[in-house]
């Protein structure tokens, strides 16, 4: 297989959400055939440059986004593709030590203290990884101090907070206040979760409220394009 064919196959495997040979892929028929991770290994061995790989992921995810928008793909299909990219990026970064190879930026995400809801947060984290952001997910029930420490160490460009309870929205406010007090002038704050709203984001001084994952992706793209 020449390099172009390999890249084409790689792109196709991402569109099909085919992670590796153990994975059944989009149409349930792909188990046993090489998936994104195996093809990536071949591509790296063949000496294909990371930027080319990343570009083919971008093209693949654009196709997936369109398929989702036209309802040909469902959420599970889209997440499977995003996960292929997320895992592939981790390998590229660790093997080639290229750091944040996508230069889209770093996103720190957490569900605030007292809150155990993470379904929505996980979807957002997976999709952002798939879109090429370097994502660090601190999990659920994360104390404000742990978020602050991670902001200092991971140095994210964006922080995303999730809260699903009216009681933990207050904690969200607390975290936002600590971040503001510590003054990270370039840090953009995103919030989400059922009880939150644009009005609440305005009240606590968060930059963006996101209704759902697509809203989050769009707002993030807008912010990234501006900066």
């Amino acid at each position: 297989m020449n390099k172009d064919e390999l890249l084409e196959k790689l792109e196709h495997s991402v569109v099909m959400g085919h992670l590796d040979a153990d994975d059944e892929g989009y149409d349930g028929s792909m188990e046993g055939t090489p998936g994104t991770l195996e093809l990536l290994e071949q591509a790296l061995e063949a000496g294909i440059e990371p930027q080319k790989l990343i570009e083919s992921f971008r093209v693949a995810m654009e196709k997936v986004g369109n398929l989702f928008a036209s309802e040909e793909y469902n959420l599970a299909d889209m997440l499977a593709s995003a996960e292929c990219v997320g895992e592939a990026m981790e390998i590229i970064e660790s093997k080639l030590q290229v750091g944040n190879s996508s230069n889209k930026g770093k996103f720190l995400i957490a569900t605030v203290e007292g809150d155990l809801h993470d379904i929505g947060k996980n979807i957002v984290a997976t999709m952002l990884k798939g879109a090429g952001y370097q994502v660090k997910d601190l999990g659920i029930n994360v104390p404000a101090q742990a978020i602050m420490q991670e902001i200092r160490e991971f140095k994210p460009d964006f922080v995303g907070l999730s809260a699903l309870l009216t009681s933990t929205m207050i904690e969200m406010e607390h975290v936002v206040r600590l971040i503001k007090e510590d003054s990270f002038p370039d840090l953009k704050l995103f919030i989400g979760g059922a009880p939150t709203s644009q009005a609440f984001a305005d009240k606590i001084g968060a930059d963006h409220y996101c209704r759902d994952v697509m809203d989050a992706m769009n707002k993030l793209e807008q912010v990234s394009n501006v900066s």
Partner: protein
Amino acid sequence: MIVTEKQQLKMLSSAEMQLLHEGSCSLLSRVGVKVTHAGIAALLLASGAQCKGDRIMLPQDMVKNALAQSARIIQFEAPDPAYSFTVNGPENQVKFGTGGQALYVVQRTSNGWVRKSAGTDDLKQIIVLCNQLKQVDFITRPVECDLPDEQKDVAKAAVFRRYCSKPINLANLVKLARLAEVLEIIGNRAHLSFIISLVSSPLVMDSSAGDKFVAIVQKDIPVAISSCPQGGSTAPFSEVGELLQLNAELLFGFVLANVVRPGAKVLYRGIPITANLYSDASPRWCQPDSIRRVALAAQLCRFYNLPCCGTAGVSDQAVPSAQGISEKVLSWVYEAACGGQYINSALGMLEQVMSVSYYQYVIDDIALGIVKEKFSKAQSLAISQLALSAALEVLGCFGIEPDEKMEAELSARIRHIENGLEPYNETYIEDQLAVIEKAVNKSSSTVFMKAARKGLREGYLYKGARLDASLDLAAVAERLESSEGLGT
């Protein structure tokens, strides 16, 4: 309401339920539950559990003992003794109540339905209304007080004490430290019960819920052990897999309860719904796939002869509608026919537990009355026929003349509820256990989502048309206006 022996619907055979039981036990002994609460871990270890890291594994004997010891009969007394009742594991008596912790109240205005934040005054008004509604047998906290967390429990107890004449279910305890005051305010603790969501899916005990659970069990107050996994995000997308996991999570609660207090008064509350993986993973509470799964959980509970706290009638619709009413009717019918006994959230709820509405309480009271009458009068009807005729009659009650299309849609929904799409055999169960184990180890809900692609293609999530027709709510408005003590 009584469901006769003949009306009892067995969508699973005893052999299939036995397989599920064994699968859940194997999950508990092999994968276990993550417990980071040192005290509770120690308590379970001292009673025969084993541990691997922070996971507590329960040998099958512990489950067996807990099932043998757990209370079969639970008394729910009421401030007005006329409303007291008993839930008895092996019996088919069904009671319906409210539920929720809704964030919003949906109100009717001249500009249509509007949503406003719910608060203490709504709690009071809803209790006053539900005291008067004939089909409300008990009152579970529908909305919380709009106060700081420290004050919520005490304020809520005070409102219930002052206004509620039916058995009181406070649902959750916000602050354990307030329990003693809550008991003092309620006065007679026989009037009181709780719900605790002890284990977060998949298989992680919530430490703070654990503390509250232990305290309530120690005080011998009835408590429903609740688990609400969502197939496709926090549990396998497969109904078999979701039931295996749900059952393991609830059995863990039964073990803990009976270690703390042998003969504990705990109820089995399984709400295995599905996640809407077509779009945004939001929960589907009242679609045929979820109605079926929740009904199967009730059947599984009754397989053990345990007291069954059911859930039914949580519409997915944002405002009162024909679609919402028909969802509710199907959900009540199947939950009752499959074994639900103390059915929560049955009235007033909209928008996937996010909202309640005064109008919806009255609509549901009328509709539930018709469903109950069907169960008592139409005893020779198959449940599928009973469900269809109840839904048609209820729609008629609100000025809708159902046409053929509506009837066909309702029938399609009923077929989806009654007809499973998956095999119940050992190999399939093993496959599902492997999916759960993988998700537990990876601790991300996306494992279940990705594994859902095949099931989505095979139609696990019902896709149908909405029932669109406008409701005549004149009678409902009149009843609301004539209700005593309502300031709306």
